[in-house]
């Protein structure tokens, strides 16, 4: 085909112009690829950061935190400042006396004591509530969990009348423990996906009875490894796995089987966290409202609420990529289109005589325009392929850099009963995710198509000018 050979000859034997046009489009398209890949990478990083927080299949997390006392300050909080109703509920919930810690009752002065308490900062509800919620419209499934704090206080009974600073006088160990419904691992505060070492719980409560999963950070601090035994509330458990720290929600040091923890803490049949899966994304919001109505005082958190609360460099990078990155890509692409168009126009200008000659030879207008446009489109294609390669390379570089971004979730609730003795809660969790820049085939196809579009636009501009050339004037023009 002569036209194709002509096309090839034009591109091959005018390498400067071909390279310049293709390069212009390549840079524009390459930027689009990188920015899109980066934004996809940030999305992935975000969902990776959010996943352990909500569990793979969890859409809604329900708990009933206590109302906050108005003021919090240093020293033991004034529990009396809690509303009377809350105090009553808590007393009912913790019959052994949650607030009651009086060393003098534990022995004679000078005697050593060990006191073990399990505390909850959230009001519990019967497990039957979970079953009821799971039957609501829009709910696919629900699972219960129990999140507690165990406090182990050791020390010596002080002489009456001595002022005791609990921080220095007693040895206090605090542990956050969560009971997990092992039959619904995807709707659990710790999911199999979070287990980074070892294994997840056995899938029946009986077999999982003595198993524990330990938060990897806590395990590192305390030198615990898979296969070790650990002590929780005076009982020994086999460490079967270590789990990555969740970003938000209630972080826990140790995860146990739910029934076992309920019995250990005298909370049989009770739960204080409920994880619910909606049957579709659309039903998440109505479902959360319904749960709120059914369970007065409940705090209902959806995955998107959590996403909105995620902060840290991950979010900064995401904002940057969505604002600056997109703008940059658009500007680069626009500039590339403009460069390609100007080059196509200047090429037609320079080839006025040549194109006029073709017309004199009997080439119809359509044929000349087609030839000019095809050249440009082919340059666009070359630019697109080069740009895709450029984008893949840049994305690979970003991947190889293994940039770490951190994500943290601002806690909706803070303080709580665990603040007793200044132990505080597990800090608002933060996680680090490695930034990747995944490039998918669809994106590359779009990128090449964009470059071809640029070539087509440039070709159309050049072709239009070529079409307007009158052969007589074209031949008159001197090179």
């Amino acid at each position, binding site marked *: *085909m*002569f*036209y194709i*050979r*002509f096309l090839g*000859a*034009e591109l*091959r*034997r*005018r390498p400067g112009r071909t390279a310049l046009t293709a390069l212009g489009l390549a840079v524009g398209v390459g930027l689009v690829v990188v920015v899109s890949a980066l934004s996809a990478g940030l999305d992935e990083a975000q969902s990776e950061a959010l996943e352990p927080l909500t569990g793979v299949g969890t859409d809604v997390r329900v708990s009933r935190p206590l109302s906050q006392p108005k003021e919090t300050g240093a020293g033991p909080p004034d529990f009396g400042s809690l509303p009377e109703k809350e105090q009553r509920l808590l007393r009912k919930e913790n019959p052994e006396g949650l607030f009651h810690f009086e060393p003098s009752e534990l022995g004679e002065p000078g005697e050593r004591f060990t006191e073990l308490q399990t505390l909850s900062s959230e009001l519990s509800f019967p497990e039957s509530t979970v079953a009821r919620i799971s039957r609501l419209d829009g709910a696919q499934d629900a699972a219960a969990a129990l999140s507690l704090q165990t406090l182990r206080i050791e020390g010596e009974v002080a002489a009456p009348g001595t002022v005791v600073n609990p921080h220095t006088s007693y040895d206090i160990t605090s542990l956050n423990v969560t009971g997990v419904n092992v039959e619904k691992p995807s709707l659990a505060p710790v999911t199999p996906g979070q287990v980074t070492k070892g294994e997840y719980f056995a899938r029946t409560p009986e077999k999982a009875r003595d198993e524990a999963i330990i938060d990897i950070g806590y395990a590192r601090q305390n030198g615990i490894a898979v296969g070790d035994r650990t002590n929780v509330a005076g009982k020994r458990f086999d460490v079967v796995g270590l789990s990555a720290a969740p970003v938000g929600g209630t972080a826990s040091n140790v995860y146990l089987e739910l029934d076992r923890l309920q019995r250990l803490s005298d909370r049989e049949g009770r739960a204080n966290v409920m994880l619910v899966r909606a049957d579709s994304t659309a039903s998440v919001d109505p479902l959360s409202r319904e749960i709120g109505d059914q369970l007065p005082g409940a705090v209902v958190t959806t995955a998107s609420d959590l996403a909105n609360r995620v902060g840290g460099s991950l979010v900064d990078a995401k904002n940057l990529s969505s604002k600056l990155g997109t703008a940059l890509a658009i500007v680069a692409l626009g500039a590339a289109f403009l460069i390609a168009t100007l080059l196509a126009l200047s090429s037609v200008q320079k080839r006025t*005589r*040549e194109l*006029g*000659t*073709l*017309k*004199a*030879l*009997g*080439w*119809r*207008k359509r*044929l000349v325009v087609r030839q000019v446009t095809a050249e440009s489109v082919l340059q666009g294609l070359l630019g697109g392929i080069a740009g895709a390669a450029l984008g893949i390379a840049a994305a690979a570089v970003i991947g190889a850099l293994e940039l770490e971004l951190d994500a943290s979730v601002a806690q909706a609730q803070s303080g709580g009963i665990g603040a007793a003795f200044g132990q505080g809660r597990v800090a608002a969790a933060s996680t680090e995710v490695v930034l990747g820049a995944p490039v998918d085939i669809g994106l590359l196809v779009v990128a090449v198509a964009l470059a071809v579009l640029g070539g087509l636009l440039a070709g159309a501009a050049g072709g239009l000018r070529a079409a307007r050339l*009158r*052969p*007589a004037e074209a*031949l*008159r023009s*001197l*090179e």
Partner: protein
Amino acid sequence: MSKGDETARAEVAESAAPSYELGAVTCIYGEGRTLVTALASLDLTIGSGEFVAVLGPSGSGKTTLLQLLGALDRPATGTVRFEGRPLEHLGEAELAALRLSALGFVFQQFNLIPTLTAAENVEAALAPLRMNGVDRRQLAGDHLKAVGLEPRARHLLTQLSGGEQQRVAIARALARAPRVVLADEPTGNLDTKSGEMVIDLLGSLHRELEITLVLVTHDQWVAERADRVLRLDDGRLTGDSVADRAGMTAR
């Protein structure tokens, strides 16, 4: 009667008509103060198979005349008939078809396409015709052979001398077996020796192929090779003489 005979008769009838008849042709360029009258009320007939040289100084309207004859431009007023057909009634596509089937051009600057080889330049003239690639390359090769450039077929223009480039242009002009070849100062960019070779080539092709050849020049020696010499001055025909090979005789 066979179809071939019919075509042959039609061609005879066509060639019987003069190649060109120009009636009161005026060409004006520019506007306002820069208005230039390139041709002023020109009447001219060019017979089929004639070798006509158009002589005149720069700006005399020679090139304008050639472009009218080449159906590349239209007059402001007046008529141009090609083989009896008035060109003003033809649309752009029809003019392109006419150029493709009947006209060949040779330019002062050769106007070859620099990115193509010699053979491909000849093929460029054949491209719009519906023919297969093998035939097209064959035909292009034959025409390069006719101008003595067969060994140079695969060379790029930068590897050819000016005279060789102009011979490629002639091969291109003749590739489609035109009835008229229009040459705009074909020796203007050549040294005397190459120029002579080009004029000899054009002259012999004109005789062999019985084509009408219109050649614009300002070289007297080139004009002397023609059957008929037209003199243009300021867009007006100031001379029209027929050569009798022994010298110039006024008509």
